[in-house]
């Protein structure tokens, strides 16, 4: 069987993490092509519903990345993101979905290397976990 190639939705804040992902590119740091980036202005913008919807639609993993604590362009949006992610992870556990499928990471604009290694690491982890079990079920809205 072919190797399982997970699909990971990544929500990146515009100012730090998206810039960090860009820097990984500029520095040609290679990482697995597993992620699909959705740019939002601030990690605080990420509604828990987005994350759940992504899982419902078959995402094998969701990465939320924002500025490091204290670096938020919008002062404190990242703290809000942090709370939400923790809550969603709790919910996931209740659903029987491994909370490791959702990750929150701080990536600054100068951490291209870190962004790449986060993606690498997470891809490997999700690969171990296997495909999103919900994907198998036919879920209709």
């Amino acid at each position, binding site marked *: 069987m072919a190797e399982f*190639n997970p*699909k990971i*939705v990544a929500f990146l804040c*515009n*100012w*730090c993490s*998206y*810039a960090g*992902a*860009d*820097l*990984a*590119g*500029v*520095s*040609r*740091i*290679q*990482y*697995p*092509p597993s992620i*699909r*980036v*959705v*740019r*939002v*202005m*601030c990690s*605080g*913008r*990420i*509604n*828990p*519903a*987005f994350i759940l*919807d*992504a899982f419902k*639609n*078959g*995402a094998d993993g969701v990465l939320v990345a924002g*500025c*490091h604590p*204290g*670096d938020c*362009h*919008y*002062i*404190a*949006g990242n703290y*809000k993101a942090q709370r*939400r992610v923790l809550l969603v992870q709790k919910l996931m556990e209740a659903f029987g979905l491994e909370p490791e499928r959702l990750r929150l990471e701080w990536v*600054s*604009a*100068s*951490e*291209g*290397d*870190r962004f*790449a290694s986060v993606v690498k690491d997470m891809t490997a982890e999700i690969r171990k976990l296997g495909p999103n079990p919900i994907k198998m079920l036919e879920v209709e809205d």
Partner: protein
Amino acid sequence: MTNKVGSVLVVGGGIAGIQASLDMADSGFRVYLLDESPGIGGVMAQLDKTFPTNDCSMCILAPKLVAAGRHPNIHLITNADITGIKGEAGNFDVSVRRRPRYVIREKCTGCGVCAEKCPVEAIDEFNQGLMNRNSIYVKYVQTVPLTFLIDRDKCIGCGTCQEVCRAKAVMYDDKEEDVVLNVGSVVLAPGFEGFDPRLKREYGYGRFTNVVSSTDFERILSASGPYGGMVLRPYDGEVPRRIAFVQCVGSRDSQVGNNYCSAACCMYGMKESIIAKEHAPGVQCTIFFMDIRSYGKDFELYYKRAQDEYNVQFIRSRVASIDEIPGSKNLKVKYVVNEQPKEEEFELVVLSIGMQPPKHAKELAKALDIKLNDNGFCYTKEFSPVETSKPGVFVCGAFEGPKDIPESVSQASGAATKATSIIASERWKLTTTKVYPPEIDVSKQEPRIGVFVCHCGINIGGVVKVPEVVEYAKKLPNVVYAEQNLYTCSQDTQEKIRETIQEHKLNRVIVASCTPRTHEPLFRETVREAGLNIYLFEMANIRDQCSWVHMHEPKEATAKAKDLVRSIVAKASLLNPLPKPVISVTHSGLVIGGGLSGMAAAQDLAEQGFEVDLVEKEKDLGGHLRHIYYTIGPEDPQEKLQSLIKQVSNNKMIHLHLNTKIDNVEGYVGNFKTTLNSNGLKSEVNSGTIIVATGATEYKPTEYFYGINKNVVTQRELEEMMVNGKLQAKTVAMIQCVGSRNESNPNCSRICCTQAIKNSLKIKELSPETEVYILYKDMRTYGFIEEAYREAVSKGVICIRYDDENKINLTQENDQLKLSIWEPTIGLSVPIEPDLLVLSAATVANTDNEETAKMLKVPLTKDGFFLEAHMKLRPVDFATEGVFLCGLAHSPKLIEESLAQASAAASRALTVLSKNALETEGAISNVNEDLCSGCKVCEPLCEYHAIEMKDVDGKKRAHVLEALCKGCGVCGSACPTGAISMLHFTDNQIIAQVRAALKEA
């Protein structure tokens, strides 16, 4: 009289130069921003983190770089030098020589293929020689302008870069070019040059590999530096376990001719040790210092954290020498504590190098005909801190004297005000405004999406099969057109996009290329020129986040590129045109506080042609300065104060409200409505901006028999005694840090050390035989004040250290004060019987600050001073737009610092007042009042106070103040009823984007 010119030349593209440029360009002047290096960003771009917030330097700088680079009224001139100046204030001709770059700025896309293929390697100066670059290069990848250049000294002219450049940007026959800029004024911000630590031979820099400079260490710490952010020592790449930081290398050192203090090194030394610990847990950092000068706002707290939280070890000693241990290449640091020679072994030594005048300061001074001070920095005066000796030429940043980033930024804004006030009549005369065609109404149209996929030379096309992506895009729903471009960002492609929009009646445009962070503005501009609302544009990043990072997996990368296009098409189908809310601006300012800062700020605004209401709660103008009779410089503060009061009182543009308090503030940027209360008489003032300059208060000591013994006075009282000729004492003792740096007020009051030195010098001048003792914790005579400290010591003022362990023992016997203090250098307690004990009392926040803060919806620090929007880069702004801050209300500071800040606050206010209307972001929050339950969850979440609760049919409903909303979306994702949507990032749009990404292709 010559005609005035509405443009300004800014020399130096560091943070100060950038800030000055942005302020002036935003308030209606054309700016030429010149840098001698090939890109702007200055030293700040080299830094890893910044104190005291430990913000990532590049994260906060990069948006400023982009803003300056894209500003229609800022013209960057890089790789250039000033060669001369003619004319006079208001109308100068400055000659500039631009060195050849060999790469055409308009054509270079910054893709970097040239450097990748360049066969010549050279030392990368930006990375302090710890890395290599090629002979065609950019300073750093975020640099602006992102135009490569050729290092002609290294280049062998092999022609490879020209060959591989698909954009045809390389031009080998580029020539030196002389241009003359006609400007009204000049702002100098050339920064500083780091002290060359080789000159301190005993420290071994350049001989011992593991001795690095603090700038080297910044690069070592940086994630984009040579070691990818790992703390490694250069000799063998091991993580050091023990790092020594040696302070004052090239500062406070007469041996090397630099008597002054470099003002920032203590803080950055601490910062570097803290960050080192964060990057390499377990590392032991030791700082060798003479005095810790953490005098800035909340800096003392940082110092405490370094000691308590991070266990940084502090050793008060000047390091004598450093030896390398053969074999291990570890370093033996030799120093003296309490007259005892000691030595300690470290694996890495960081030399905290001082600031020196910029390398070409002398040439610059000569070319511009300005004076330098004895230390080679720009000559300024205490009461005109941003003015050089030549009228019309202004200065800011470290060229004026060593300083940190926020001080530089304040000064930069201050210089901006001064530089434009002499040409205020020319506002908006040389700026460009673009006229756009009316927007096409697309509301009733089905989405018709055009997709432009960029090859980016080989950057994308070399990995992703672009034609395949184009064919794929054509089949996606709502896509009516797709094509590929060699460079979608090139000028001819913009024309192509415009034509295609018209020809195919496109109403949504997608470019699949690089990052929106740099290129979205360009394409938005293009679609707008074709009559589309800018929010009908979207980008898919198939380069930085696809082709470049999956270079060895072309198949997967192509699949990913298709996914990214599909998912952005899904979003684009749901895009709506958004208006950019326009707010009218009341063209007058309100200044709260009639002290030095308030008056100066008011005067600045008035000089620029705006009416000002100046509110002072006391009956007289002057504030704190009324009690200052001497300064460390030659100027007479009272004379200056009186002349300023006279100017302000006589200025018809300034409306004075004495004996007046603020009762209420309503409105937002551009349209504030403030209720004034003058002894019960209420009135309303409208203003576009508000400047807070409410000052601070001197601490009333409760310690050291103050108020009990009449021979115990404060520094302020001492000054009054001296000026009135009442100083009789034969022995004067001064105690520093009274009411500060203690449990209840942990911060340093910054100015008291200077006060003590100033007054002791005055005492010595009035009565040379009087003995003066200063009992201090750390002597914080930063910058050039250090020289006054030296003078005081040389005139016999005796300074003795005390601290919480080595306390001052003070008793009184019949009013005779007796104190003793242990002096470690002689190993004895020194008894002193002062006739006069002078307490250096802290400067503390006004008690009514809390009330004012509430009315203005702005925050305070723990100790009650006003808290600015960002410690580093927005020192006089509040997060609340339109409200600014200066002077002692911000934190304790010296006269010249208050004046610079006052002008800075005025400059920031001018960026608002100068406009007829403010255009704000369109992608903001939007409340559906039908869904809002009035639960108020959103209100406190908003850091910008952009949400208020409004009565709608008797019910509370959330309401977004469009002018204040920054569009982060925090409220939207928290709203329990889903009533708030973030325009341009709506739930539907994001979910559609995510789902499309997950759909199998």
